[in-house]
Each structure stands twice: as C-alpha cells, then as structure tokens.
C-alpha cells in the first residue's frame, strides 16, 4: 500500500484541446512531485504555474461547494478540489473534461445544455401569493417531516458529474438528464411550493423522467451524496399518480405569522436591514 505521508512523484495525463489550434483532443503528460494531501485541483494549479501556463479549467471555492471543478478523473466524474491524489491509489492520474458535454477548451465542458434544461423545469418556489413573497409578513410553515422530503436533493451543487455519468444522457440528447429532473423533484416535493402543474408541462413530455433506465450511475458518482436516481423514480410515481388522479392535492404551505406581543431578549442584536 502506498505511503501517503511522503512526497512522491506523479504523472498527470491531461486531455488537452484548444479549438483554435487543435483538430482533435490529445493527451499530454506532466510529471512533478506530489506532497501529501495534494488535491487534483492543486496538481492542476501546479502544472499551470510551472509546466503549462495555457492549461484551462473551471474552479472557484476549493472546498466542494461551488460545483465548478467537475472533471473526469481516473475514469470517474469527480470534483477536482475534493479528490486527493493519494486516494486515487495510482501514480498516474488521468484528467479529462466531463463526458457527455462539448468541450470549450482543455478541461472546460460546455454546461449550457444542462443549465437550459435546468431552467426549463422552473427550479424555484412557485406560488400564487406574489405579494407575500415580495413583502413577507411571516414564514411559510413547514414540519421537519416535510423538510425531509426534499432536503437531500437540495444539496445538489450543479457540478454536472451525474450528467457525465448518465448512460441515457450520453446517447439521447432529448432526455433532460438527472440534475434538472432531480431539481424539479426537489421543488415538486417541497411543501411550500405549488408549481407542480407548471413543471408538469415539461416533465410529462419526452424530456421528462420516462427515458431514465435507472442505471443509478448518477447517484453513485454524486460528490454531495445526492440520489438523483431516487428523485427520478419518485417523480415517475408522482406523475403516474397524477394521471390516475390518485395523488394528494397539495396546498402550498400557509404562512406562520409572527405572534403579537413578543419581546426580544436582551443582548440579541436587531436583524440587519434587508438588502434586496
């Protein structure tokens, strides 16, 4: 077993592509010492600083939150910032852009189709009480059980790893893909939301969950532990029940008004003014 406490030499085999000069992508190797704890993202930064300044990729937060650095690392979609070189158990690290997307340059995939599909499913709370949303008089009431219905799906960071792993999305451009569908289900199962009928216009058509073969790869590779495959199956059930008129009519959660006569305890500062 490899000793992860000492610096060892690694080879980063990176798929390079510059549309202005290259006809096809090609592989390039970069050899450098890898100190303990180095992540793949740090390895890429080292290459850019000292070996190949033209290397391009997306990254931002460096802590697995922003979802920018999704890449195909050693044959699996992962976040570069969340993947330590040592955990790959190999001195050869292959890094390629996420599959199932067009390549803009080097490790930068074109995620526009994913975000277009995401936008189509209206991934936000839809309610009739526009005034209440603009000028809230209270909070929408929600129990802990109702929160559990969608909580895990809300952890999605839209990195695109699930889309890159999906065998259906790889071959079928009509299919919306696991991320947009899981996010549509996240809002459909939110007790504060009343937008199922609006989202159904997209979900009940051919871009909906019907083409999912339940391979489950999306859930296996998700770096945040979200289970998009489960969301898609639950969505299928919800839509079938809706067609059979067996589904419960969901009324969006009511507003829990702040009780009158409450006094702020001493030492607790005032709420800062609203910024929007």
């Amino acid at each position, binding site marked *: 077993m490899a000793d992860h406490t000492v610096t060892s030499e690694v080879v980063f085999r990176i798929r390079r592509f510059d549309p202005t000069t290259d006809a096809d992508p090609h592989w390039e190797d970069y050899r450098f010492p890898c100190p303990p704890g180095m992540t793949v993202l740090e390895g890429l930064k080292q290459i850019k600083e000292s070996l190949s300044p033209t290397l391009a990729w997306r990254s931002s937060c460096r802590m697995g939150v922003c979802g920018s650095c999704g890449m195909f690392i050693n044959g699996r979609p992962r976040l570069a910032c969340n993947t330590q070189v040592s955990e790959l158990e190999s001195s050869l690290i292959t890094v390629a852009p996420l599959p199932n997307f067009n390549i803009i340059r080097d490790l930068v995939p074109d995620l526009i189709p994913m975000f277009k599909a995401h936008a189509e499913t209206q991934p936000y709370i839809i309610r009739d009480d526009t005034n209440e949303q603009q000028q809230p008089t209270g909070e929408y009431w929600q129990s802990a059980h109702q929160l559990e219905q969608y909580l895990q799906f809300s952890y999605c960071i839209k990195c695109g790893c699930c889309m890159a792993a999906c065998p259906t999305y790889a071959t079928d*451009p009509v299919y919306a893909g696991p991320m947009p569908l899981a996010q549509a289900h996240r809002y459909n199962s939110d007790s504060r939301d009343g937008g199922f009928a609006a989202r159904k216009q997209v979900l*009940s058509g051919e871009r*909906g969950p019907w083409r999912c073969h339940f391979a489950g790869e999306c859930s296996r590779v998700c770096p945040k532990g979200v289970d998009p495959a489960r969301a898609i199956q639950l969505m299928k059930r919800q839509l079938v029940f809706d*067609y059979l008129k067996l589904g419960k009519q969901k009324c969006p959660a009511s507003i829990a008004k702040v009780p009158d006569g409450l006094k702020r305890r001493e030492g607790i500062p005032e709420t800062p003014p609203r910024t929007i």
Partner: protein
Amino acid sequence: MRDQRLWTWHIGAGAVILVLLGLHMTVMHLDAIVRIFNPAPGEPVDWANVVARSKSVFFLVTYVLLLGTALFHGFYGLRNILFELNPGAPAKKAMNGLFLVAGLVLFAIGTWAAWAGFTVARSA
C-alpha cells in the same frame, strides 16, 4: 402529457401481463403441482384440456386481454428504444403510425383466432 399517459398505460399493462402470464405459467407448466383449468387427465396441451379451457368465457377474455396488453407493452417498449436513437420528427411520426397499425392488425387477428377457438370448442 402524452408520455405521462403512455407511460402510465405501459406500467398498467405490465402489471396485467404479470398476473395473466402467472396464470398461464400456472396452468401450462405447474400442472403437476397445481392442477387447475385442466379437467381431463393427461397434459395441459391435450385436446380435451384445450377444448375445456377454450369453452370458458373467462379464458376467452384473458386471452384477448393478454394479447392487447402484451402488444401495447411490447410495441411501446420497442418505440421507446427506437426513439432513444434520436430519429427525426418524420421518422417518429412514421414509427408511431406503423406500430399503431401493426398493433391493431395483430390484435384483430388474435381476437378473431380466440373467438374462433371459443366457438369451435363450444360446438365440439
């Protein structure tokens, strides 16, 4: 809306097939253990047993129901497989028409055969 409707029918047809195929397997292949709908001695495919089943309105209905659900389930599944190859809109329309016509023709032939078997068995 269309895929939601077709998918629901696809699932419903699958559930019906599960029950009716279970009945078929029980009658035809578990005869030594569960002897139902085979009144005469011998094999389930012996003439006497076939006639006995074919006389029954219950079997006439189940044959036609199994035929209809199997045709819908099978053709819809095949249509989905072909649609995942991402054909153009005219090809999709042609496939929809072809499968609809093929399904209806096969259903008509099968129903006619089941009805013919029923009337022949009744008159035997």
